């Protein structure tokens, strides 16, 4: 397997494990945290900050999430999923932009070749 695939495959293995493997949080809770979308109000401040403003996470965010009944193990998983989800979006966005740029460059080269 080429090295480029090994890096990507290793990331996908992490994504697959945290979303689809066994966990203390439900698969739905983990998926919502990963997507940072439709998260219950008690978890939204924590998940939203982990995804987009992690330096602003506070003790109060964890306290609010615990008060809703989540255990520390469940919160551990939810935070990991929120972090991995944001990384996945950036990784995907970067690779998609690269593919688009490569296609454009290839198209321009072909166009130049056909007119020369």
């Amino acid at each position, binding site marked *: 397997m080429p090295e480029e695939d090994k890096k990507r495959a290793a990331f996908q293995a992490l994504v697959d*494990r945290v979303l689809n493997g066994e966990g203390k949080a439900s698969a739905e809770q983990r998926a919502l945290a990963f997507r940072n979308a439709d998260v219950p109000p008690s978890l939204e401040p924590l998940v939203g900050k982990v995804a987009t403003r992690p330096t602003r996470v506070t003790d109060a965010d964890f306290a609010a999430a615990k008060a809703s009944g989540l255990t520390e193990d469940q919160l551990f998983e939810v*935070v990991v999923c929120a*972090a991995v989800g944001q990384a996945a979006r950036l990784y995907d966005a*970067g690779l998609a932009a690269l593919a688009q740029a490569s296609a454009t460059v290839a198209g321009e080269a072909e166009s130049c070749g056909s007119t020369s």
Partner: protein
Amino acid sequence: MRLDILNRGYGAGTKALFALIRVFSGHPVPDAAKIVFYRSDFYGARAKEFTHEAMRGASSWSVADRELMAAFVSKANECAFCVGAHTATASRAYQDGAKVQAVLADLDSAPVEEPLRATLRMLGNLIREGKASSSDMRDVLSAGVSRQQVKDALAVCAAFTVTNRLADAFGFEVLGPEGFDAGAKYLLKRGYR
């Protein structure tokens, strides 16, 4: 750390390992290392594998370049723990702390090759804006960076996008210069596995 389980929820064998590391290194195990031992089947095992592949797997970027990317990504994410850890590691890897500090202070004027500068600029934009355009990528390719190098840099970015978030969410203790330097020696000798 903010969750008690991350401070105390380790088995006897892991606690003994932490104690041994403390004795032999002269420093407590950093929170970034502790966390991958917590229920490692959920996160740590695969996170270590991915991070090691991104940082030490085959790439035409040097280990020093990738450690600099890790520091730069961490700075864009404002993660104090990871900036400290990977500034120390990149500085050791290059044997040039001034170069690393210059990149983190002002990328445009820093003494680095254009392909690396263009790649770091793209990573910074990706993190700050949460998106990338084909124009961003054409700029990087035009600077002489190969497609494979872009992919390798994106893997570094993904690895530290995760770690930066865990560091700030869980509240990793920021170490002093000696602690970060001890961690840098370990990472350059053993990697991330």
